[in-house]
């Protein structure tokens, strides 16, 4: 079962869900809004191996280009040992053709971090620091649980893939 907004607020009050910072205005009927942390890694076909620049999003905005992958993260830290989480984009940014994840929408129970976003745009889109960009939903689970203790456990910034093989973008000369 998916938690309604009032159920999310009650779980935060009980300590079953941590959202930091938490602001009741960001509760929706069945999710909680998150915001865009003002740093993005940018990878493109011309990126050299392991050399992915980290860009600051200025108050005047940053133009995201198609054909690039941007790794950003949420302003908020999300954590729950009781509920599983799924991350979706806000319809307002989906309508601009901005993907916020690349088919990796599940947040494991026990993970505690700023959620890394895999951002890709269809048309060029200007984004701004701390803008509301998506939503997290919380799901009741069934069965015994082994909370997440994986390699992205305490990320506090956008984090490129920790799989060294996945990080090996082709060099321009190899492409």
């Amino acid at each position, binding site marked *: *079962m*998916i*938690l*309604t*907004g*009032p*159920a*999310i607020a*009650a779980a935060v009050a009980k300590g079953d869900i941590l959202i930091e910072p938490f602001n009741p205005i960001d509760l*929706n*009927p*069945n*999710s909680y809004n998150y915001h865009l942390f003002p740093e993005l890694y940018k990878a493109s076909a011309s990126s050299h191996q392991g050399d992915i620049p980290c860009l600051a999003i200025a108050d005047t*905005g940053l*133009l995201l280009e*198609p054909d690039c992958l941007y790794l950003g993260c949420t302003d908020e830290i999300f954590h729950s040992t009781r509920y599983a989480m799924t991350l*979706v*984009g*806000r*319809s*307002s*940014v*989906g*309508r*601009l*053709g*901005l*993907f*916020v*994840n690349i088919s990796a*929408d599940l947040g494991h129970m026990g993970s505690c971090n700023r959620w890394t976003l895999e951002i890709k745009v*269809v*048309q*060029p*889109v*200007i*984004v*701004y620091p701390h*803008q*509301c960009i*998506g*939503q997290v*939903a919380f799901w*009741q689970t069934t069965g015994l649980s082994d909370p997440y203790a994986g390699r992205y456990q305490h990320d506090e910034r956008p984090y490129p893939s920790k799989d060294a093989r996945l990080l090996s973008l082709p060099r321009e000369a190899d492409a």
Partner: protein
Amino acid sequence: MILTGHAIQEAVDRGEIAISPFESACLGPNSYDFHLGTKCRTYDSLVLDSGRPNPSTVQEVPPEGIVLDPKRIYLWDTLEVIGSSRYVPIIRARSSTARLGLFVHVTADMIDIGSINRLTLQLHAVVPVRVYPRMRVGQVTFWVCSGEIVPYTGKYRDTESPAGSLSYRDFGVSD
């Protein structure tokens, strides 16, 4: 918990799920197939700004359809009015649609409880694809929620689909 086709039918009969027009033939084992409407909205400019209004144009799509350009985002209405005052709708493509490389949403698959409207689909084609009005393009599933229900009162409530992004309103920018 996800509703089965029979449970969707019963909830429609009870008035807890709105699907209009509704045809039993579109029920699947745990979803309902929806169709593209006849209206498609595209942005007038290639570069989009999430902090400002982006002028756009709606066209009535002819029966012979249109070819989607992978470099553009297309907002398209559904033939059906869809929503629920009790369950959380989540949409996805039909497998036949996905096998053509056609996204029906851009990481914005979850609909708020109480939002009852024609959907605004976010069509993105990986390779050029011809699509037709009234084609059976996606599925809506319905999920049981836990907690008090506070229905959607957000900014798309009274919009006519397909509605362009109202992201700029988050920045205090008015129309």
